[in-house]
């Protein structure tokens, strides 16, 4: 599957692994007979992906959600190298983390075309009103959270057996989330994604007593459930 050439470049032999979907423009070079074609993320409008947004179809819905990044599919026989703007890459093996990862579309570098990618609402994270409360209130709250963190209301979910390559400025490190461990909290700007059954809740630590004295950590993303969260060593957006 994907192998790291260095901290910023991955290579993949598509003759052995099958077609690979990657962010447009991220191909550095290839050897062999490889054909690149535009690729669409599935599940945009056809009911499954975005609850309550069924009326707005596919492409338009994704653009509206801001959760859209042009991708291309590489098919054929050969070895392809991918990298993007000198940003560190991180390979996630979905088989080891519960078969699913949720990550911003802009942070997805490449994944096997056999994996299922879809756009999902942040409110339905982790399968059950994870946005903080459930119902209409939960949806509203997660929408507000999206505005504050710049994460948007929607996120991309990739699932299936295989590997996903994600991007993190300054490198990505993993923190395990489990009910047996102390709770994990992440700076929303440093949050890259989460795999497994992880729900994220945006929490403000500002109260009437400490306005302006939170030490620059006013907004925090609480992660609960079972899985892994991915954090980058920077607060840079991609």
């Amino acid at each position, binding site marked *: 599957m994907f192998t790291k050439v260095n901290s910023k470049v991955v290579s993949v032999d598509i003759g052995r692994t099958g077609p690979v979907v990657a962010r447009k423009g991220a191909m550095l070079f290839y050897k062999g007979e490889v054909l690149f074609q535009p690729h669409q993320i599935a599940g945009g409008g056809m009911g499954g992906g975005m609850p309550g947004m069924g009326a707005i179809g596919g492409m338009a819905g994704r653009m509206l959600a801001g959760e859209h990044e042009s991708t291309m599919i590489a098919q054929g026989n050969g070895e392809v190298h991918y990298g993007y703007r000198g940003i560190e890459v991180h390979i996630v093996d979905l088989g080891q983390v519960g078969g699913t990862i949720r990550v911003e579309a802009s942070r997805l570098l490449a994944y096997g075309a056999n994996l299922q990618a879809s756009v999902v609402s942040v409110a339905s994270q982790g399968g059950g009103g994870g946005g903080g409360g459930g119902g209409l209130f939960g949806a509203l709250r997660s929408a507000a959270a999206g505005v504050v963190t710049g994460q948007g209301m929607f996120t991309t979910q990739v699932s299936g057996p295989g590997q996903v390559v994600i991007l993190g400025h*300054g490198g990505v490190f993993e923190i395990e989330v489990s009910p047996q461990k102390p709770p994990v*909290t992440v*700076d929303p700007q*440093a949050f890259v994604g989460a795999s497994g059954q992880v729900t994220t809740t945006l929490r403000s630590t500002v109260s009437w007593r400490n306005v*302006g004295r939170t030490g*620059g*950590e006013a907004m925090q993303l609480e992660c609960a459930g079972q899985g892994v969260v991915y954090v980058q060593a920077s*607060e840079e957006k991609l």
Partner: protein
Amino acid sequence: MQLVQRSKRVVEARLNNTAVRALSGSMVAYEGQVAFKSAGFGGGDGVLAGLKQRATGEGLSLMEASGTGVVYFAHDAAETTIIELNNETLQVESEQLMVLNGNLQTNVTFAGLRGASSGQGLFTTTVTGHGQVALISNGGPLIHLEVSPQYPLVVDPDAFVCARGQLSQSFVTDVSWRSVIGQGSGEAFSLRWDGTGVVSIQPAER
């Protein structure tokens, strides 16, 4: 309570009902129960510190993380270095300071006329006491350069990060008729260190 290098760019602090001070906003994640609050500026305590910050421009805004758990600190993908201080004084550029651990005092002192033209200011932050300091450096890991009486060291003020030991600094100018007619080398002002100690620089200029 210990600072540990998690990766090149991430420092983790293990808290056990204790506290560390860090650059405001440098937390990227934490496990456990940790609270963050503003801990003033690098110039010491109280109202005087605030005034000092205004007057000197050494703007180091700190926060205090306290509780029990593991806190991860990183800043803008810069590389990090942990330095142990054993009742020593570290002179450091305030913008390169990320985490302070243990029994350390920070202060802002007059550093002489260096950098008056390089924009680095006339003042420097000092860290004194016993504990660990995590510094950030751009462009790669810190480069530690030894200074001994026979071999004084001259560094670019824009690459200077910190210095410790029995050192005195002076300001070297290399302005000649060449600079006037635009043939200068671009290194007109330098920092010279004499004495015994270690000076650390980063492989990038601010």
